[in-house]
């Protein structure tokens, strides 16, 4: 009995150290909060930028809801209607696509720098875990949102991804082998990607994922408020600046500039101009799949390896990586910042190279297609 009580008290201690809610006061959050100044200080802005892009997504997303119609016969037409006939509809839509990519980019940089700066270290484990959740939710946003315009590339890319889930079944033993195709059917809702899939993705994209995101980001920001900025470097910084008003103003200043850039980009350059048009025709269930079906660039880091290496290697690697992200605070508990930043550089280099030169590497491995 006594032992159990100890366990319980241990858990309470664990939680109070991670979530010191008694720190939640105006003085702590506004008057005393400070941001260390050192050569990695720029990394402190990445989380805020991600938040800015999320806010843009939220606002433009709600705007798009006013005109978008989630049915297989109307989805593509309603997106075209927004783009060509609704006043500044193209702008709202371009903002939504541009800002989604920017959000994922910032999120990745945020995650890698937080890793390199050992910002996950005790007592900030919960902040890291909620951040990892946010990463996965954001990728889910990207995946579900991709299908909604119901054009060729969207539907076909979704088909391919869902099919690869089923593929995983071949590598599982016994009764488990049926599990992936079961999961696929739950996601897909019918035998092939159709109205049921669209309805599911729509519900996920506009209701369920935002709810989860709000919860996770609440926890994440609470963690940041309770513990303040992580020191980020080994030697205690000589200089610090107050979060309010100094840092937050710089933050808003950056938001202003970044928003302006994204706004101008969205005014001038549709994200779709990077692809050839036939991919954006309405999905045709009876025709052949057009060439050039690819996921969004932020999935290249799994897409190209998937094309080149045996399937099971990637599946295993992805599963380990996904689970591993959540255990980072414990795996790297005693790793020095120096080693962490080397690992971070390796990850960053991998992501950059595979995203920029994936097609080239693919062609080297596979020949140019014939």
């Amino acid at each position, binding site marked *: 009995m006594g032992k159990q009580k100890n366990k319980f008290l241990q858990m309470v201690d664990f939680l109070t150290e991670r979530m010191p809610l008694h720190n939640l006061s105006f003085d702590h959050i506004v008057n005393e909060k400070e941001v260390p100044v050192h050569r990695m200080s720029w990394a402190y802005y990445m989380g805020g930028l991600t938040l800015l892009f999320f806010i843009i997504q939220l606002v433009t997303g709600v705007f798009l809801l006013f005109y978008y119609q989630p049915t297989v016969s109307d989805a593509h037409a309603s997106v075209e209607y927004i783009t060509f006939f609704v006043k500044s509809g193209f702008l709202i839509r371009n903002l939504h696509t541009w800002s989604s990519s920017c959000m994922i980019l910032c999120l990745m940089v945020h995650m890698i720098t937080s890793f390199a700066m050992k910002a996950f270290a005790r007592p900030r484990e919960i902040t890291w875990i909620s951040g990892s959740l946010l990463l996965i939710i954001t990728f889910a946003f990207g995946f579900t949102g991709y299908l909604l315009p119901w054009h060729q590339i969207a539907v*076909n890319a979704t088909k391919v991804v869902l099919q690869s889930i089923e593929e995983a079944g071949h590598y599982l033993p016994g009764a488990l082998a049926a599990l992936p195709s079961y999961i696929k059917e739950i996601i897909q809702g019918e035998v092939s990607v159709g109205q049921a899939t669209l309805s599911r993705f729509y519900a996920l994209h506009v209701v369920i994922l935002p709810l989860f995101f709000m919860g996770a980001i609440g926890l994440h920001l609470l963690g940041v408020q309770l513990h303040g900025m992580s020191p980020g470097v080994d030697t205690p910084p000589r200089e610090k600046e107050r979060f309010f008003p100094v840092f937050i103003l710089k933050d808003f200043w950056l938001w202003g500039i970044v928003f302006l850039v994204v706004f101008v980009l969205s005014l001038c350059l549709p994200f779709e101009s990077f692809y050839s048009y036939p991919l954006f025709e309405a999905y045709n269930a009876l025709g052949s799949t057009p060439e050039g079906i690819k996921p969004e660039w932020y999935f290249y880091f799994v897409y190209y390896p998937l094309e080149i290496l045996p399937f099971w290697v990637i599946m295993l690697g992805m599963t380990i990586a996904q689970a591993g992200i959540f255990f980072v605070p414990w795996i790297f508990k005693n790793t020095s910042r120096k080693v962490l930043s080397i690992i971070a550089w390796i990850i960053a280099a991998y992501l950059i190279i595979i995203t920029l030169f994936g097609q080239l590497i693919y062609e080297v491995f596979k020949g140019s297609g014939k």
Partner: protein
Amino acid sequence: MFDLFLFIGLPYVAIASLVVVSFIRYKFRAFSYSSLSTQFLEDRWLAWASLPWHLGIILILLGHLLAFGLPGVWSILVSIPTFLLVVEALGIFSALLCLVSLVILLIRRFVDAKLQAVTSYLDVVVLLILLFQVLTGLAAAIHHRWGAAWAPGALGPYIRSIFLLQPDASFVKDMPPFVKLHIASAWVLIMFFPFTRLVHALSVPLHYFVRSPQKVVWNSSRSQVRFEQKIQFDNEKRLFLKAAFGAGASVALLSLGVLDKFFRYFLKQDLTNAEESHILSQKLQRLKQSADERELELERMNKDSIFVAKLSELSRTRGKYFIDYQMRPALAFSDEQGLPILISAKCTHLGCTVGQELDAQGRILCPCHISYFDIKTGQPSPGSPAKLPLPHLGWALKDEQGNLLMAQDPEGRREGSIDPSQAGKSLLFIGKRFS
């Protein structure tokens, strides 16, 4: 006669005073060229007044200088409505800044004991003239709209006439009272200028932009630490003020640019008749397409066999797409004997729809990951990502009366036969029993 005094006599007195007294004062009382800062006597009110005052007045003076100094350029600029609007809005905003700060400066002169000890009559007179000047300017701007556009043309010639020594008051004598008052009090201000603390404006402090800010404080070793903290606090306050100003301006610009666009998003779309009918016909077409697909599905639920094509329509090199009993895409070709080859078009790799064109080796291509399939065997060519063959579909050929002529199951077992002469007329079906 009074007009002649105000707009011709007074100006020359004022200019003479400005030039002569400024020179004498600079020559003989150089150290009196100062703004006589009172920051160390009272700085809380001052912070809220001095900065906005200088910001506002510099903007306004720049505007006056540009409008009257470069009337040609200016008139081109203000012919752009947006520019005129921005200039007027900025002008009125700056005037309000000046007005509020002058009132604060006056009040602090009257309520602070320390300040009263150093306040001279001229200090108060200067403030009052400035206040009068700002008020008349603001009143003129509000009562006689778009001054930025009309003033350079209407008043420019008068000012030039003064400086070209051919004074002509006729340009101003019929002006509205506010404008006349504004001009007259400007000359009074210029006349007083060299006698007062305003002379600090002549020491154009351009290096202030690059040096770090200075603060006038009491000097004592005891309060050193306190001042260091205070200076840091003041730095933050300065940053905050600047940023708040910037944020205010950017929010204003954003509201103009962004909100304007965002707001329009919710307006009714004005479409031409052609656009509207284009949209509607497209919508109908899509609905029909969905309806067709649903019909195909229903047909597959209820019917034992489904028509694919006339045998004569099939080609040996270009497949015809159709939908099998599981609603998956499939392709129909014809072989050398003129008999059909029905093969699934759903790639066994990741489910893309395979292309319909046959290459020279009798293969079809899945474009997603470049898998080639032989349509006779269904086998993928070596090295393709797909490892499993595309399955064949069973088929049946019937004549026009619906009599079964020949059938083949998915494994290739045939029953019946067909007379080549009849082949062209026969119809190709897929059957439920094969699926």
